[in-house]
């Protein structure tokens, strides 16, 4: 399959490596307006995605552009008969995702997947297997912290990620979206959404901290703190289950700044076991290798080859998680100026 990478920043370069590593894919070009000829490390370089699509006629397009451009690139790629892998977030707004969904529905033979790669991190896969097996009972609650240090100042404040015209939102949309997606991955949809957005430190027009509280019809509650002022990069997802708890900390990444990816498994002792209540035996699992980027794309290739629907990180997944974010952005408390809560689909004007 011929693959085109559109957008060659941090994520585009990661995706290009995946393309190079997978024998099913052959890179036919990269597109980024900041690149000059010869800067594609052996790949044909284009400055405009329309031109790139026309010239290379790819089978699969990786959309790794800033959020403002993602929907247009996705829609055009679909209109030209290409399968699409789009980075998260899937756009700036809920309407952006709906545009992609409309285009996908017009081309039911084409596959669309979004870059919710955290689902494929080894600790998450391990935790998912434990939850799905059901021997620890059902999930009662989730608590997630995901955050980063913005950096030293102006560079972070000037980033397109903090320009609402380009990004559509702040840290919640940029990074917190992964944790919200994981909440859905473990518990399904959430109907009740409460949010609080603050800009506590950085001089930016979007939130640098978001606090989100969710509840679904099954009574499962999830709580997120998404932050751009965690001076130590942090990923932490705790799950309380009927029969114990699971805690994922750290995240395998290129720089290792989130710490070693770890899953703690604690099981409530049974009555017949001679183990003190409140201090159960724990297992700590350390992971050495992150295959999430590759696993996700392999799954998309499988869907394309076998003609089966995308069931993981699909457009529906993107839509649902953007509904949660949209609810927080529309109805949540922002810097103390608004105190409304609401449900997706029942938003205030």
């Amino acid at each position, binding site marked *: 399959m011929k693959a085109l990478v559109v957008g060659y920043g941090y994520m585009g370069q990661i995706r290009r490596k995946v393309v190079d590593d997978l024998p099913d894919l052959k890179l036919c070009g990269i597109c980024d307006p900041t690149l000059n000829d010869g800067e594609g490390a052996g790949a044909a370089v284009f400055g405009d995605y329309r031109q790139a699509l026309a010239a290379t006629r790819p089978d699969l397009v990786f959309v790794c552009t800033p959020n403002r451009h993602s929907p247009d690139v996705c829609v055009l790629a679909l209109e030209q008969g290409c399968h699409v892998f789009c980075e998260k977030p899937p756009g700036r707004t809920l309407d952006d995702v709906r545009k992609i969904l409309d285009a996908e529905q017009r081309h039911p033979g084409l596959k669309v997947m979004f870059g919710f790669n955290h689902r494929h991190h080894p600790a998450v896969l391990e935790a998912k*297997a434990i939850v799905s097996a059901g021997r620890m009972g059902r999930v009662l609650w989730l608590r997630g912290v995901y955050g980063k240090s913005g950096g030293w100042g102006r560079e972070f404040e000037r980033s397109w990620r903090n320009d609402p015209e380009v990004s559509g939102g702040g840290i919640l949309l940029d990074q917190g979206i992964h944790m919200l997606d994981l909440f859905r991955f473990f518990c399904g949809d959430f109907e009740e959404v409460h949010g609080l957005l603050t800009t506590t430190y950085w001089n930016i027009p979007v939130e640098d901290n978001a606090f989100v509280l969710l509840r679904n019809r099954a009574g499962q509650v999830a709580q997120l703190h998404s932050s751009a002022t965690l001076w130590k990069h942090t990923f932490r997802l705790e799950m309380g289950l009927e029969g114990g708890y699971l805690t994922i900390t750290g995240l395998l990444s290129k720089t290792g700044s989130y710490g070693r990816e770890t899953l703690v498994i604690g099981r409530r002792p049974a009555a017949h076991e001679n183990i003190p209540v409140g201090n159960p035996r724990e297992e700590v699992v350390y992971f*050495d290798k992150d295959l999430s980027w590759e696993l996700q794309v392999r799954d998309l290739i499988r869907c394309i080859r076998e003609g089966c629907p995308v069931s993981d990180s699909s457009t529906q997944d993107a839509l649902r998680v953007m509904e949660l974010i949209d609810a927080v952005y529309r109805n949540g408390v922002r810097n103390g100026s608004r105190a409304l809560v609401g449900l997706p689909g029942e938003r205030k004007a």
Partner: protein
Amino acid sequence: MKTVVVEQVLLESEIKPSALLDEYRRLVEADVRAGLADPGRLVPAACPGCRAEPGRPAFRKAGLAYIECAACGSLYVSPRPGEEDLIRFYRDSAAARFWRERLLPATRETRREKMVRPRIQWLLDVADRHVPGARLAILDGHHTDLFVEELTREGRAPFAVVLASPLADLELGGRSFPDVALHPTLLGDLPSIGPADLYLAFDLLDRCPDPDGLLAAARDALAPGGLVLATTLLGSGFDVQVLWERSGTIYPPERMNLLSVEGLLALVGRHSFEVLELSTPGTFDVEIVQRAIRADPEGSWPRFIRYLVQNRNEGALLAFQEYLQRYRLSSFARIVLRKSA
């Protein structure tokens, strides 16, 4: 590959009371000298880890020579007794009877709670993750009865189990369990039981006369994508490295292959398994070294190790044990291998 650290307080003396263990080791030494150390029946062996030979003589125990591999650091017995002599030893020797009739019954409930149940949890977690819907497991190795009791605790096993150990009939003592079949077999016949989804070799790699043969047979007995779950003692672990020939843990024939982590990886690499997990979740290393130093305070010990175990409290020693686990430096290892699909 992943690494697992287990946080639980368990003393070696809880599963091996020292008076009983001393008597057991005395019997083992006598039985090995009398029945297994006949030079005419011993077979030379290369390093079971990396296959390098010859290694450096390390020390002798019960008349058998331990060799240290110069390439991968594994410690192994060579020349060594063969499979049938070992089976005879484990069935009929006074030491083996003492283990079955005295030592095991005295520690049975502690073993059940702190060793067997966690192993079953491990097995079920790994099966859920990698072979959901597993239908058949081959259980090999020693001390299988408690494992079978716990696996069938809820009334039935989560998958059919075939007991392949040549000692299983003795260990089960005539009892039968739902979904569990008895099929004692020599290593070479193992593939005839498969294809299985799981091959469970607890405490077997270290005492097996032919680890290469074991993994080759396991591979042939497994269905594509099937898993090996194995536990073993390692020669690269803390207590073995510190105590070396003074280690009470090292005695033939139970500890014939004390592979280093590197040697273990070389061994499994030869059989084209994918390593899903390699952990050293041992809990005894520091305790074993501490007891050895207490028993011989004037002995020649590494100065820092002596200082550590004599001058730091239980919390510090537990943290040190956890460090050993975290960096694969404990002498007890568990490993999960996957046969390619």
